[in-house]
């Protein structure tokens, strides 16, 4: 199996934060853990700038991190989750069933999910690993 083939088969990770700096920083941490083994994309900031999240940017990030094994989304707060749910609903039916939003803290969740994904785990395993971090 070529390296490229392997990457395409690993679950993709999308990081959505209100802050582009947080999203980029979390993505850097995932990259440091897993190198290029996992499709990874991030987005942050409201349409036109400022803190917030942007459905269009979330859709683009899902597309960028797309994998046949699916995509796990990590979100920070409120609107990031609601806007991600909206974006997922706007996907084609065929893709929609292969995207999950993890109920986990965004930075730690992204690193855990990325590490799990790099092992070739299923989307469900990736989500469960991230959600072990869920605040209780």
């Amino acid at each position, binding site marked *: 199996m070529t390296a490229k083939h392997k990457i395409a088969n690993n679950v993709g990770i999308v990081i959505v934060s*209100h802050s582009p700096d947080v999203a980029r920083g979390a993505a850097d941490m995932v990259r440091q853990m897993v190198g290029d083994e996992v499709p990874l994309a991030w987005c942050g900031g*409201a349409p036109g700038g400022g*803190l*917030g999240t942007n459905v269009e940017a979330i859709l683009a990030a899902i597309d960028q991190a797309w994998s046949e094994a699916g995509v796990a989304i990590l979100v920070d707060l409120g609107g990031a989750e*609601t806007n991600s749910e909206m974006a997922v609903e706007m996907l084609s039916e065929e893709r929609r069933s292969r995207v999950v939003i993890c109920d986990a803290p965004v930075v730690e969740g992204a690193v855990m999910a990325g590490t799990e994904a790099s092992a070739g785990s299923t989307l469900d395993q990736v989500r469960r690993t991230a959600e072990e971090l869920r605040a209780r």
Partner: protein
Amino acid sequence: MSIDTHLKRRLIGEVARCMVTHAEELTALDQAIGDGDHGLNMKRGFEAVLADLDKTAALPMPEALKAVGMTLVMKVGGASGPLYGTLFMALGKALPESPTRAGVAQAFSAAVDAVKARGKSDVQMKTMLDVLVPVLAAVNEGGEDLYARLRGSAQSAAAATIPMQAVRGRASFLGARSVGHMDPGARSSSLMVTTVVDVLESEGRMTKQDENRAASR
């Protein structure tokens, strides 16, 4: 009630302008218990709605509402985007082109349900639903002084969120400290309802005669 282009322009345009005008007030409310961006986000969304107003007002009402909803989803940037976007899109989906009061009530009910599902929320959680649900009840009741009661219901329902403790949204992080402030989403919903009622009243729409005419068709 027939909804012509003139009425569509006024309804959509005046709701949008009202949100833009009240941006600072909504942001101030949100600074007290949330992340302080509600007014800014609504302003961004509804300025985009205003920019498309000519195109939107030319569409049949259901399509126009769906277009407004989609603009809010894409432009607002906070949770209020999908929440208000869902309200407008669901309203558009359920509204007949020439609705009677019963038709409006039915569509509004479907839209409120869609907002509940989107926000995984319900009344008494200090959200926009604490305004939308009582207003829906007033629409369902109908009656002679409907406009006045709708306005009163929207205003008192928004005020009733002041003593509530937030259960959903960013304000829930504050726990008991969210008590004592009006919910910004309840306020924006109340402003929207009031604006719609003002426009319908000034245009003399949804009157008793209108309903009788619709019923005799």
